[in-house]
């Protein structure tokens, strides 16, 4: 029916699941910030940060290896930082020959490179956990509470709501394209890149018009229920004592991480 790839939420009973979404968003941001603040090479602090992450994984009843399994998604981007290995002065570790020049990896270069990777790796896992333990509409509510302008959160909410509808339409367009993308034996099929891009462009144009006209109908539906231009939202969440206590504890741990890193 729908593409479930967009459903990142894992429906489970757990302490973490029950917390107010604001707590989860705040702790995620604080954790990522903490990683960014830790200096290069503070392996002890990074290690404890990872333990903290594993602990929350377990507390969410998702299995201790939940985020680990999914954490390599941003790895290709590491290529961008690879020059750091060779460009930071320090003690030479090893030299090797690549095409027509010599590259020397230094200890400082390696330290920095690995630190970048570890920070990124830890942060992305917390972000993965966030959407697994908080439903996306709740995350949007949390953003509203954290003073993100309503117009933006509303657009995001609409995006999420209509994404599935539009993706279904895209699938139908893609399937129609598939059905007409035959290949005859012996002949080279596929058309030129330009032609393929044009087909894609036509599909995009078609999708645009359908979306535009849909937005008109949605506007009418909003009018029919009393919308006069000023959007109101309702937030079914309330903060309880457990939320405050958990947030305080989490922030305390993160502060501890910073101390370990800087001392």
């Amino acid at each position, binding site marked *: 029916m729908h593409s479930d790839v967009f459903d990142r939420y894992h429906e489970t009973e757990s302490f973490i699941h029950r917390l107010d979404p604001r707590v989860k968003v705040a702790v995620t941001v604080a954790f990522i910030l903490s990683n960014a603040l830790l200096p290069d090479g503070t392996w002890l602090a990074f290690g404890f940060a990872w333990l903290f992450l594993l602990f929350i994984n377990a507390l969410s009843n998702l299995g201790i290896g939940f985020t680990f399994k999914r954490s390599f998604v941003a790895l290709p981007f590491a290529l961008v930082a690879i020059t750091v290995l060779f460009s930071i002065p320090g003690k030479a570790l090893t030299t090797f020959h690549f095409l027509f020049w010599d590259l020397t990896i230094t200890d400082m270069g390696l330290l920095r490179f690995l630190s970048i990777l570890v920070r990124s790796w830890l942060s992305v896992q917390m972000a993965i956990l966030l959407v697994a333990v908080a439903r996306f509409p709740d995350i949007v509510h949390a953003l509203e509470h954290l003073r993100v302008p309503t117009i933006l959160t509303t657009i995001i909410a609409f995006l999420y709501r209509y994404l599935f509808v539009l993706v279904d339409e895209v699938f139908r367009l893609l399937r129609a394209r598939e059905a007409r993308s035959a290949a005859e034996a012996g002949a080279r099929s596929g058309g030129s890149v330009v032609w393929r891009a044009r087909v894609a462009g036509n599909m995009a144009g078609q999708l645009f018009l359908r979306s535009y006209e849909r937005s008109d*109908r949605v506007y009418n539906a909003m009018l029919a229920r009393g919308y006069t231009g000023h959007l109101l939202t309702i937030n079914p969440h309330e903060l309880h004592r457990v939320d405050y206590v958990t947030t305080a504890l989490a922030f305390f741990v993160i502060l501890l991480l910073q101390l370990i890193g800087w001392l």
Partner: protein
Amino acid sequence: MTNVLHVQDLHYSYHDGHMALRGVSFELCEGEKVALVGPNGAGKSTLMLHLNGILNGQGDVTVGDKRIARDNLPAVRAMVGLVFQNPDDQLFSPTVFEDVAFGPLHMGLPKDEVTARVESALQAVRMSGFRDRLSHHLSVGEKKRIAIATVLSMNPQILVLDEPSAGLDPRARRTLINLLRELPITMLVSTHDMKLVEELFPRTIVMDEGMIVADGKTKEILADAKLLEAHGLEKP
């Protein structure tokens, strides 16, 4: 019997000049359940969009004691609950709760009252457990019922439905029919489903080419084979 809806000599043409309504007049009394039938292009949807002021043609539309005008649109829209054909257009919030709460929230009701209205509207459509569900996870039949709930939460006086049974499988259709039968509210329903008309609606209005060509007891209209054929309808 009190008049809940009074439409007087309504005319409307679209921007491209096409005359969609050519002098439509009729009345609805409190508690009446009326079917609106006719071929595609007859002007049924256009007429419905006039009933809550989304479209504004020449003529009068009076809801209760209010004649629809620019300054009383919010009040009118709380009285006339319009449910569109495509539930994906009607359900625009991420969760069911937010969609059903939208109406009462924009009426200015306080949070507690809004929550209470959501509960009772969901109960009225027999979907109390769906409060926290995500809209895009629902089946077509479920979406259609939630769509009805989104206007019921405003406690309207009239329910106007555009093709409610279109696209439903037999079971979902049966659930919908039972629901419509039980709701004690004035109703105007546009549909191609003649069996639905026969089962639920004592009165039928037939529209064709922007005009009302028949308005009377369903039994009589469905027995008039010539009338049905002239306007592209079939006996159930």
